[in-house]
């Protein structure tokens, strides 16, 4: 693959699950690493429990902020029932990351599923762990740091083996 082709990540789930927060964190990690990044989503109804998805693209040259259908290198889905809704986003050979890949019962709160799955994603991307930690901290209120750091490492450690290529 030419390095000019962007890496495409789609994060999807239901309103209130922290889809947009997860994509903000990812975008900050990428931006902090000095790469060009574009992030796009539709919000408005996002807190009302409907389907939500957010696109993050990074690389040297990016034009459209939206990940073209069938071109997501990574599809991170925070709710199992949203996998079929978003499956068409994934590129052939792309990586699907979903809640079943982590031990959800180990999460201190279900609310940190977004960060746990970012932990899984982090194994696939070459950004230093410090960058993830910094982005997590700058995007979350201080009282949430501990639970989310644990969630991140839960995902990052379980991500060593999982991440099905489709």
């Amino acid at each position, binding site marked *: *693959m*030419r*390095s000019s082709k962007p*890496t495409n990540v789609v994060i999807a789930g*239901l*309103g209130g699950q922290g889809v947009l927060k997860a994509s903000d964190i990812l*975008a*900050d990690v990428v*931006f*902090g*690493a*000095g*790469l*060009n*990044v*574009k*992030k*796009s*989503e*539709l*919000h*408005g*109804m996002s*807190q*009302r*429990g*409907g*389907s939500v998805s957010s696109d993050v693209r990074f*690389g040297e040259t990016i*034009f*459209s*902020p*939206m990940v*073209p*259908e069938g071109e997501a*290198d990574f599809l991170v889905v925070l709710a199992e*029932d*949203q996998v*079929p*809704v*978003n*499956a*068409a986003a994934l590129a052939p050979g792309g990586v699907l990351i979903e809640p079943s890949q982590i031990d959800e019962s180990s999460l201190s709160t279900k609310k940190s599923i977004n960060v746990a799955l970012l932990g899984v994603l982090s194994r*696939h*991307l*070459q*950004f*230093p762990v*410090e*960058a993830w930690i*910094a982005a997590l901290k700058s995007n979350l209120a201080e009282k949430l740091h501990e639970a989310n750091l644990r969630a991140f490492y839960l995902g990052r450690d379980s991500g060593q083996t999982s991440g099905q290529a489709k």
Partner: protein
Amino acid sequence: MYTEFKIEKTQGFTLNYFEQDHALSLLSGDEAVAMAAFDAGVTLGTGYPGTPSTEILEAFETLGGRAQWSPNEKVALEVAIGVAFAGRRAIVTMKHVGLNVASDPLFTVAYARLDGALVVVSADDPGMASSQNEQDNRRYALAAGVPMLEPSDSQEAYEFTLRAIEISERWHTPILLRMTTRVCHSKTVVRRGTVTVPPSGPAHFEHDLPSRAMIPAYARPAHVRLRKALAEMAAWNDQAGPNQLIAGSSSLGIITSGIAYQHVREVAPEASVLKLGMTYPLPVERMRAFAASVARCMVVEEGDPYLVEGARAAGIAVEGKPEMYRFGELNTVRVRRILAGDTSPETKRVPGKAPSFCPGCPHRSSYTALKNLNCIVPGDIGCYALGALPPFEAMDAMICMGAAIGMGLGLRYSLPPEEAKRVVSVIGDSTFVHSGITGLIEMIYNPPETGHVVLILDNGITAMTGMQEHPGTGRNLSHARTGKVVFEDLARSLGIRNVHVIDPTLNLDKFQELIQSCLDKPELSVVIARRDCLLATRAIREYERCNEKQQTD
């Protein structure tokens, strides 16, 4: 795949990477507009919340700018006109349908001579992610005779806001900054300080009635001046406007603007592209020369065939997109199809989960009662429009801000009494302030024989757009205490005798009985179902606590 990345970039990574380059930040288009307004010394930002424009004023305030929510977009624009008449710089923000409300002042301020700058941001919503229509507000620039810029990413949102101020001051005209959902809400990297404008002049006022008082005698020559100025702007746009030529193949040329430009560059990297940044008045001669330089000239634009019509009216032969692509947003897949002339049916996306009322939302109680009573419900714009969806399906009509009351009255005047007696106008608190008050006046002025019931769903905040304050909350954009419209006092002051305030969540039977008793009377009733939005309760408590503390300190 990631190994293809230039890893040396990340090897040199430090957590302070961008602290060395303060000029760069990752911003949404809305945030970029706010930053530009701040950098240009805009003295006042006004507006009414509306997705996808809402964050502009919030970000402007966070940066330290003075920002105010107005009761509606018309008032917001009028205030901004006053600022520009005083020689200062103003920005006014709204969603596309907000410009309908503000169109009255817009069309005539186009005739006036401004001393300061007036940038009107219209955030359009192609595809209707969160709107009731997908009108293309580029038509407003043409109709009102107001110049227009269209950014395609956050960097341009930043730069075009500054350019808009320049153009506004150079020609003493209001200017439209037309954004769309994807430009407003996408985050892209912005370099600050790429464009600068001279500082704004001091606030001053000199009497100049022919320039500002648009009585017919002054408006007639003003209209002539406007057309002359637009001709000058068109010539300037041809020569020096913020348009960009990307040289490429001579076999295919594409004229485009806004977000469509980004899709075009991705899909057709080989094509020649004329990217229009100023789309009214159009740089017609530049377009003509471009079209002549390529074998096939296409126009790729989101929404209406605005550029196509502009080109064709000037006698430039261009190919437009098939009609099916007028609907909804464009993306790279659709642009590829447009370029290929593909009109075969598009693959349908697997439908996602529809949004619904939050668990415990007070609107649930209100709609349960309305459904149980088999009411006819003209409704309005806000979260409570979700009452049109299952399981309630209890909102029968929704057209625009404030329409619930007028539509309810029209139904009452027209339906046979047995049906008329079931009509309840449902409207939210912020929407009531925006456009419902005049409806209430219509109701007391022309009362239906069967009476009428207005149900104000007062959840104490503009919830739909993300918890903005409004005059009914008694707190301003910065959440500080200010004057407050008390709905029950307002209704009583109009002579409405049946005014009730009730928490619909406490006792559903009691709430339902109250509505029923109002429906049974041939009188006018206003029922205020008051219960704070669950998502806002904690924040509201905190604002009130801070305000209390400030008052006692």
